[in-house]
C-alpha cells in the first residue's frame, strides 16, 4: 500500500548524487532576481538568508528541500506558498510576488532560468529542473533588510515608553509563591503544582450567565501570542509580541507602565507564554533567548543576561518559574545540527548571575549517551524545554518536560531504536543546583513529532505523591514523583501510534511500520503533530479530582526526508506532512475531556468542529473556562461539561485563561491571539470553512455585574 504513496524517485537518486540532465526552469531571470528581494522582505526572517530554515521554518534549499519537494511539481510549491505564507497570513501578497518568490526558490536550488514567465500553473517536477546542489542566483547578503511578519509590529522606539511608579507593590516572597493569595495569579499555571485552577468562587453555574466584559486591551500584533497574564495585588503584567511588557491596573485596564524591550519580531512564530515574579522584579525570558529583570514598580531594566545566542535561532517561549531566589528558564529551537545543545538554566534573581545549567541531550560518554545509536554529538538535537517547569515544595523538586529529538523521524535522525535521552522525558531536578534526581522517558526514540514537553502537574492522592502529564500522543501518564516510577496511564484521545503500553513500565511499543520506516516513506500517525494535546494547558480541579484536557483530533501522513549530516541543517526541516481527519470524529477537530486523576477514568468528553486553543481554567465555583479557534470563549460546568455561557471574541481565542480578584470581585481574563503553531496551522488546512481575522492579539476581562 505504502508503495502507493512512497516517493519512489528521486530520494535515492538525490542521496546517491547521480548526475541527471536538468531542464531549464519555468521562470525568467528577472523573476528570480525580483523574488530574491521579495524573499528577503517576506520570508528570510523565519527561513533565514541562507534558506536553511530554523525553528519551525523548513529549509528552502539543499538536500532537505529537495527531499521534501523534488518529487512534487512547481505548481504545488507555488500553491503551498501562496496558501500558507507569510505564516498566518496566506494569500496576503500579490500574485506576482508569490510567482517571483517561487522562481527564486527554484533558482536557489540550481534551476536555470528560461524564457517564459512563471505563472504558478507549471506542473514540471522540481527534481527535473533543480538538484539542490547550489544556487543559480546568489543568496541575499545577511545584512539585507528583513521586514517584520506581515501584520506588523507597531513602529516606534524601544525602551520604557510609559514610566511607572506603582507605590503599593508588595515584593513577592517564597511564601507567597508556595501559598498564593486567592486573588493573585503569580505564575504560569498559578501555583507551583501547575494546576491552572483558581480558588475563587464568586462565579458559579447559577450566575455565570451574567458575565460581562469589563475591559479589554489591544496587544501588539505581528507575531505569535499565547500569553498568560500574571496578576499580583491588582496589577496585571502582560507580555506582548516583540517582548513588550506592560503593567496594567487589573481592575480598570489602565496602563501603569510599558517597556518595549524588543527586538521587533523577524519571525511569525514563537510566543513568550509567561513572565515570572519574585521580590520586586518581573522576569522576562525573551524570544531572542535573553532574560530580563524589570523593576515591577517602574518597568525599568534592573539587569539582563543572555541565555543563548538568539542570532543562532535560539529562543525562550516557555516562560520562567521562580524558586528559592532563582529564575529557572528553558530554551527552544535547538534543532539545527550544531555543537551546542538545549539546556534548562537558573539565574540569581537579584543579579542575573547564572547558577546552574542542565543539558537536556546526553552526549557520548555521559549517562544515557549510548541511546543515540552512536551518533556524533552534533547530530543529537532537540529535547527543547518550551514549557516552563513546575515545582513540588514538599520534595524540593522541579519537574520539566522535554520535546522530542530532532530531526523528527528516526530514519532521518539516524538514531535507530535508541531512546534519545533526555528527549520526550520528564526530568526531576533539584532547583538549588540543577542536579538530576530522576528521569522518565515517555516515548523512547520518538518518531513522529509527538512531544511530551508539556506541564507536569503535581498532585497528592492521599499519601501518594504523583506527577501527571499528557503529551501530543494523548496518553495521560501518572508517575511517582519521588522515584520517577511509572504508575499508570490512559489514552485520552484515539491513537494508532502505539500498539501497546507495558502495564508495569509504561514503555510503549510503536506500530511495526513506524519502527521500520525508511527515509522517503510515508507513515500514518493519529494523532498528528497538533496532538492529541498541544501547548494549551490542562487544568486540575482539586475539589473534584478532575483534570480537564483540551485536545485536537487530526491525523497525519509523515515522511522523513533526507538530511545532510553536517553542521547547519537538520531540525524540523526534514519531514513532510499531509493531514487527514481522525477516523470516527465526523470531522470534529476539537475535543475537551475530564479525567479523574485517582482512577484515571474519564468522566465526560465533548467534540466540536473547532479545536480548543486556550488552556483550561477551573475554578472553585464549579465553572471552567476555555476558548477555541472559532472565536468562542465559553464557561462550562466542570463536572458535566455542559456549556453555561459563551461569547464570541474578535479573533481566535488563544492563550492562557486566568482568574483573579480585586477588591473582592472575581475577574476572568483571556486572550485572543494569533500564531499558535500546529494547533492553529492544522485546522487552517483541515477546516477551510472556519475563518478568523489574521490580526487581533488582545486581552479581554470579564466579571459579574456589580450590585
Amino acid at each position: 500500500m505504502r508503495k502507493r504513496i512512497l516517493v519512489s524517485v528521486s530520494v535515492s537518486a538525490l542521496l546517491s548524487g547521480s548526475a541527471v540532465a536538468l531542464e531549464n526552469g519555468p521562470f525568467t531571470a528577472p523573476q528570480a532576481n525580483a523574488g530574491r528581494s521579495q524573499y528577503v522582505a517576506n520570508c528570510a526572517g523565519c527561513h533565514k538568508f541562507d534558506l536553511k530554515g530554523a525553528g519551525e521554518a523548513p529549509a528552502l534549499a539543499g538536500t532537505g528541500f529537495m527531499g521534501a519537494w523534488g518529487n512534487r511539481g512547481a505548481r504545488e510549491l507555488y500553491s503551498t506558498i501562496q496558501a500558507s505564507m507569510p505564516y498566518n497570513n496566506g494569500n496576503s501578497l500579490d500574485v506576482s510576488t508569490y510567482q517571483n518568490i517561487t522562481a527564486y526558490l527554484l533558482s536557489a536550488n540550481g534551476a536555470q532560468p528560461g524564457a517564459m514567465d512563471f505563472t504558478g500553473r507549471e506542473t514540471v517536477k522540481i527534481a527535473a529542473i533543480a538538484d539542490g546542489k547550489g544556487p543559480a542566483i546568489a543568496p541575499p547578503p545577511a545584512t539585507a533588510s528583513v521586514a517584520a511578519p506581515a501584520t506588523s509590529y507597531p513602529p516606534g522606539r524601544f525602551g520604557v515608553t510609559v514610566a511607572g511608579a506603582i507605590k503599593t507593590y508588595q515584593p513577592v516572597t517564597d511564601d507567597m509563591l508556595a501559598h498564593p493569595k486567592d486573588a493573585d495569579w503569580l505564575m504560569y499555571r498559578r501555583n507551583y503544582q501547575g494546576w491552572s485552577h483558581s480558588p475563587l468562587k464568586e462565579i458559579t453555574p447559577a450566575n455565570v450567565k451574567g458575565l460581562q466584559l469589563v475591559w479589554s486591551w489591544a496587544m501588539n500584533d505581528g507575531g505569535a501570542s499565547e500569553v498568560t497574564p500574571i496578576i499580583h495585588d491588582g496589577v496585571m503584567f502582560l507580555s506582548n509580541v516583540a517582548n513588550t511588557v506592560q503593567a496594567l491596573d487589573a481592575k480598570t485596564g489602565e496602563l501603569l507602565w510599558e517597556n518595549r524591550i524588543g527586538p521587533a519580531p523577524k519571525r511569525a512564530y514563537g510566543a513568550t507564554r509567561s513572565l515570572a515574579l519574585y521580590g520586586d522584579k518581573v522576569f522576562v525570558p525573551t524570544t531572542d533567548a535573553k532574560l530580563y529583570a524589570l523593576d515591577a514598580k517602574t518597568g525599568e531594566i534592573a539587569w539582563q543576561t543572555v541565555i543563548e545566542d538568539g542570532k543562532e535561532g535560539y529562543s525562550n517561549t516557555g516562560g520562567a518559574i521562580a524558586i528559592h531566589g532563582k529564575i529557572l528558564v528553558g530554551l527552544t529551537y535547538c534543532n539545527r545540527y550544531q555543537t551546542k545543545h538545549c539546556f534548562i538554566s537558573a539565574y540569581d534573581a537579584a543579579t542575573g548571575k547564572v547558577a546552574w545549567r542542565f543539558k537536556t541531550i546526553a552526549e557520548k560518554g555521559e549517562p544515557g549517551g549510548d541511546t543515540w545509536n552512536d551518533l556524533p554529538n552534533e547530530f543529537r538535537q532537540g529535547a527543547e524545554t518550551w514549557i516552563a517547569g513546575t515545582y513540588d515544595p514538599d520534595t524540593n523538586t522541579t519537574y520539566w518536560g522535554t520535546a522530542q529529538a530532532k530531526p523528527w523521524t528516526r530514519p532521518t535522525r539516524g538514531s535507530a531504536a535508541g531512546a534519545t535521552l533526555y528527549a520526550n522525558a520528564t526530568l526531576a531536578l533539584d532547583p538549588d543546583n540543577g542536579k538530576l534526581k530522576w528521569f522518565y522517558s515517555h516515548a523512547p526514540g520518538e518518531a513522529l513529532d509527538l512531544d511530551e514537553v508539556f506541564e507536569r502537574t503535581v498532585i497528592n492522592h492521599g499519601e501518594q505523591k504523583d506527577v501527571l502529564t499528557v503529551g501530543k500522543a494523548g496518553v495521560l501518564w501518572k508517575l511517582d514523583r519521588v522515584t520517577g516510577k511509572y504508575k499508570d496511564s490512559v489514552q485520552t484521545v484515539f491513537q494508532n501510534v502505539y500498539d501497546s503500553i507495558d502495564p508495569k513500565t509504561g514503555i510503549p511499543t510503536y506500530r511495526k511500520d513506524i519502527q521500520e520506516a525508511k527515509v522517503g516513506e510515508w507513515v500514518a500517525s493519529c494523532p498528528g503533530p497538533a496532538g492529541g494535546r498541544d501547548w494549551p494547558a490542562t487544568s486540575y480541579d482539586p475539589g473534584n479530582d478532575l483534570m480537564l484536557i483540551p485536545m485536537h483530533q487530526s491525523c497525519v501522513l509523515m515522511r522523513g526526508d533526507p538530511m545532510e549530516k553536517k553542521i547547519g541543517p537538520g531540525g524540523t526541516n526534514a519531514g513532510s506532512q499531509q493531514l487527514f481527519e481522525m477516523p470516527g470524529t465526523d470531522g470534529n477537530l476539537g475535543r475537551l475531556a475530564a479525567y479523574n486523576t485517582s482512577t484515571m477514568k474519564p468522566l465526560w468528553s465533548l467534540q466540536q468542529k473547532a479545536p480548543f486553543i486556550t488552556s483550561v481554567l477551573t475554578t472553585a465555583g464549579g465553572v471552567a473556562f476555555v476558548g477555541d479557534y472559532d472565536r468562542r470563549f465559553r464557561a462550562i460546568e466542570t463536572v458535566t461539561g455542559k456549556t453555561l455561557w459563551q461569547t464570541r471574541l474578535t479573533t481566535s481565542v488563544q492563550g492562557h485563561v486566568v482568574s483573579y480578584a480585586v477588591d473582592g470581585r472575581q475577574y476572568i481574563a483571556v486572550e485572543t491571539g494569533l500564531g499558535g503553531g500546529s494547533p492553529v496551522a492544522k485546522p487552517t488546512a483541515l477546516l477551510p470553512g472556519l475563518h478568523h481575522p489574521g490580526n487581533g492579539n488582545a486581552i479581554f476581562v470579564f466579571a459579574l455585574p456589580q450590585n
Partner: protein
Amino acid sequence: MRHSIIGSCIGFGLCLLAFSPVSAQAFDTRLGPSPLTEGTRSNVTGEGRAAATLDGSRLAVSGDFHGLATAATKAALYDGIRIGAMGPKLADITVTPGQAGTISGDVTLSAKQAAELRAGHIYVRIDSEKAPDGNLTGWLMPPHPFAGEDVPVPGHGFLPQYDVPSR
C-alpha cells in the same frame, strides 16, 4: 457512555443499520477530504458518507459525496494497517463521475479481510481528477453513535479502539 446514546442515529449509514438483517453486520463512515496540505487543499475538497453491510462473505458498499473540486475518477476499498493507517487496495468499487455523486459495490471478502473490516481497518477512498492520490477518505467501522457537536457525553467519547489495547 457511547452505548447510552445509541439511539441518536445520525447519517444514513447508521439509519440503514436499523433495517439490516439480524445476521448482517453494518459499518459506516464519514468521507472527509484527505490527505491534504495547505498547497493541495484547493483540490482536495468535499465530503460524503459511506455505509457497508457484511452478509456472510459479501460486503455491499454504498454512499454519496458532494463538493469535490474536480470530478471523481475512481473509488476503491483499501485494507489499512490500523484504523487511520493506510494500506493496500482491496477492491475497486463504482463511482459516478462528477463533483457530486454516489459510490456502490459488492465485494467478496476472505475471512481475514472480514476480520480486518470488523477491526476497523478497511477504508473507502475516492479519487478525483486533481486529487488522484485521494480526495475523500473514511474508515468503515461498526456503529459508534456520535452525540453531536458540543454535547458532552459520559466517558471517553472517542472512537473505540477495536485493535489497540488500552495499555
